[in-house]
């Protein structure tokens, strides 16, 4: 049994949950993101692949926005200190519990002392490790999302490290469920990103626009939670820069070198490079599963179409039934 779960006083080691044995390449506590603090220069953070994040929480019968762990690339291991239910979704990282191979996109009961390991990914970049009830993290500016660059969120504003304790409650009542294989997303190495022409798009000549929309780009070596730098034909804007202005998630910025940068969850909130448009959230989620060398093409869509796609996707999520495993 655990006590003191609500105690914020004193030693952190009186709170139980999972203890980190291997932190992996980049493992971060994330909830839906931090909104309401843009005016102070705080970006939103949150899960890069919201779809996989939502599924991890749903498989644990959680509210969709509670805190889970975003594991990038893999190499993450924890030991349970409590009895509870977990689920891992997203990139194909080999999951084992006490050395036994388990499926992703499925919830499992774990007991205090169990070792849960995520190996390195075979397909995709980020996976989501959720627990029944969510990890109990004190919010910072209304959110637990970790933004390392700002030193905000998570346990102490940083990525997870060995011996960190991820507090959560003991639960045993949850039913075990899975998402059928046909409903699980596939992470391929080629993507078509749907983008809404916006911001300074009229400052790109029709030739430059045609080039942008007909060319193939590759994910370069610099891709992270701030932005994905792409490599391909140079796209030149009529103007060098603009007065710094608010940047929305998915905005595609074109600095002087003409190589597009798709700005992601941890982007700076304002910036002065011209932008040709903004990739829709359904597709930045997919982009976030792409690593260096991944191939990309852009397809322009309207604001109305984007909204319809997002609402349809939400409806599909809500209508997709989980399968009971017990």
């Amino acid at each position, binding site marked *: 049994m655990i006590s003191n779960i609500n105690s914020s006083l004193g030693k952190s080691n009186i709170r139980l949950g999972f203890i980190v044995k291997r932190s992996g390449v980049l493992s971060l506590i994330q909830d839906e993101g931090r909104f309401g603090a843009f005016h102070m220069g*705080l970006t939103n953070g949150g899960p890069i692949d919201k779809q996989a994040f939502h599924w991890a929480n749903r498989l644990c019968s959680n509210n969709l926005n509670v805190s889970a762990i975003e594991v990038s690339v893999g190499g993450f291991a924890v030991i349970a200190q409590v009895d509870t239910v977990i689920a891992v979704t997203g990139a194909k990282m080999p999951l084992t519990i006490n050395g036994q191979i388990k499926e992703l996109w499925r919830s499992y009961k774990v007991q205090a002392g169990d070792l849960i390991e995520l190996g390195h990914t075979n397909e995709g970049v980020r996976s989501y490790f959720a627990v029944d009830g969510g990890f109990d993290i004190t919010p910072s500016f209304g959110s637990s999302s970790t933004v390392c660059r*700002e030193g905000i969120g998570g346990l102490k504003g940083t990525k997870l490290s060995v011996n960190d304790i991820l507090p959560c409650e003991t639960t045993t009542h949850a039913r075990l469920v899975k998402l059928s294989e046909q409903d699980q997303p596939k992470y391929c190495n080629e993507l078509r990103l749907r983008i809404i022409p916006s911001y300074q798009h009229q400052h790109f000549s029709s030739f430059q626009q045609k080039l942008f929309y007909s060319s193939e780009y590759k994910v370069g070596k610099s891709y992270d939670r701030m932005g994905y730098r792409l490599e391909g034909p140079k796209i030149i804007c009529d103007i060098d820069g603009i007065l710094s202005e608010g940047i929305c998630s998915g905005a595609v910025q074109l600095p002087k070198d003409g190589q597009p940068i798709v700005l992601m969850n941890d982007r700076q909130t304002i910036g002065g490079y011209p932008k040709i448009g903004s990739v829709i959230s359904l597709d930045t989620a997919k982009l976030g599963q792409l690593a260096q060398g991944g191939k990309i093409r852009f397809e322009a869509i309207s604001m109305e179409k984007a909204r319809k796609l997002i609402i349809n996707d939400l409806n599909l999520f809500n209508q997709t039934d989980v399968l009971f495993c017990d």
Partner: protein
Amino acid sequence: MSPEINIEIAGENSLIIYFSEKISEEVTAKVHRAQLLIKQEMSNWLIDVIPSYTSILVVFNLLETDHHLVANKLRMLLKNIAINIDNQGQLIELPVYYALESGPDLTVIAKHTNLPIEKIISIHQQQEYRVYAIGFAPGFAYLGEVDERIAMPRLNTPRMKVPKGAVAIADRQTAIYPSTSPGGWNIIGLCPVEMFNANNNPNMPVQVGDRVKFKAISRDEFSSLGGVLGTTYD
């Protein structure tokens, strides 16, 4: 609606309002007033706003509304935006310890501008600055406009480490680094007041639209206000 207000698409759930193409006192006052109005009047579907020099990014919940409705409401709301330039924003005085030990680029600016260091320091204090935008890092406030006589281009090679509290100039802007970070602005002093602290209330001493005035303090005053010297400038 003022004819120069322009509302354009930014992303699937965001619009950007452009108040002007140029920075001016009037535009800053409008941005300040408008963001308050938007937050007050549109809370039903508003996710967040990002005010900046001449624009406001408005992020909305697309499940609750769509961009046509948002644009219409914004036009209505901002149609007769009343501003009183003299009475916009708080005036905040920030203490600065200007010296060679705290402002390693004062000599470079002196060389570049042909002004004595004391003159540069006094010019920097002479005027009220407006907080045009906050970004780059939490609490990093872009203040303008710096007197042309002491305007200074960014360093060719940015420093790996600019100390927390560094007061710096880049072109016609000035700012205080809220935390230790890389940076390419010219450092002229140190400010002991924290520009961002997650545990303070408010978290920042300034917000967009506020006015800032700098006041020189001595080394002792700097220390007694909690300032820390001895940071190396890489």
